[in-house]
């Protein structure tokens, strides 16, 4: 099983500019949760955002990583990291809540304690 630090680094390398907080849900090292803040999520449905994170670990989920729980966050300039996400475009859903325009100056959240 890959250590938490390695999972974090692989996410941050695969998604340039992202920050990932990876925690161990059970203490067993194979049920992980990743909170990923990445401005590249803007414009993607939540489903696509999660698939993007899963794709980094293709073939390992269900194997060495038994479970990877994901929370995706789109950083908005000057905010505290709370998310505004597009809704998933299903029938009857107008998908109107789009993340506000990002002017490129979005702040990076500092990494939390490890």
């Amino acid at each position, binding site marked *: 099983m890959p250590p938490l630090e390695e999972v974090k680094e692989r996410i941050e390398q695969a998604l340039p500019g992202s920050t990932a907080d990876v925690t161990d849900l059970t203490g067993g090292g194979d049920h992980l949760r990743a909170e990923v803040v990445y401005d590249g999520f803007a414009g993607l449905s939540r*489903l696509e955002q999660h698939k993007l994170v*899963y794709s980094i670990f293709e073939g390992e989920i*269900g194997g060495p990583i038994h479970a990877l*729980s994901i*929370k995706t966050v789109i950083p908005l300039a000057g905010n505290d990291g709370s998310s505004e996400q597009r*809704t*998933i475009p*299903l*029938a009857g859903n107008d998908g109107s809540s789009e993340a506000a325009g990002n002017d490129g100056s979005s702040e990076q959240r500092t990494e939390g304690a490890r």
Partner: protein
Amino acid sequence: MNNEEIRAELKRAIEEEHVMLFMKGTPDAPRCGFSARVTQILNASGADYSAMDILPDPRIREELSGLSGWPTIPQLFVNGELVGGCDIVTEMFESGELAETLGVEQPARPETPAAQQPAQAPPLQIE
């Protein structure tokens, strides 16, 4: 049953069932905490749904993930479209989006899924 027949049966279930949950175990006896949470949410939402246990044959999961492009279980489909896994279903339940997607009324207190109730439909099985 060969892989093509399994895939055809999965496709049929996804296309024909309005709300289709693929899970580990059954709604009455989930075998994984993530699957249990999604069944609790669906029960609390009051939606009619069908469920299939993917555990009896590893090829079910392989074919399902091949169809959906989603690596983990559970997987929830509504009207033939993948909604997501446990994380997305939970977020949508808490935000109220799930009721709209399912076509049901949002329960009064979405943050507290009701105690588990028997599933509305018996689980589908691939034999």
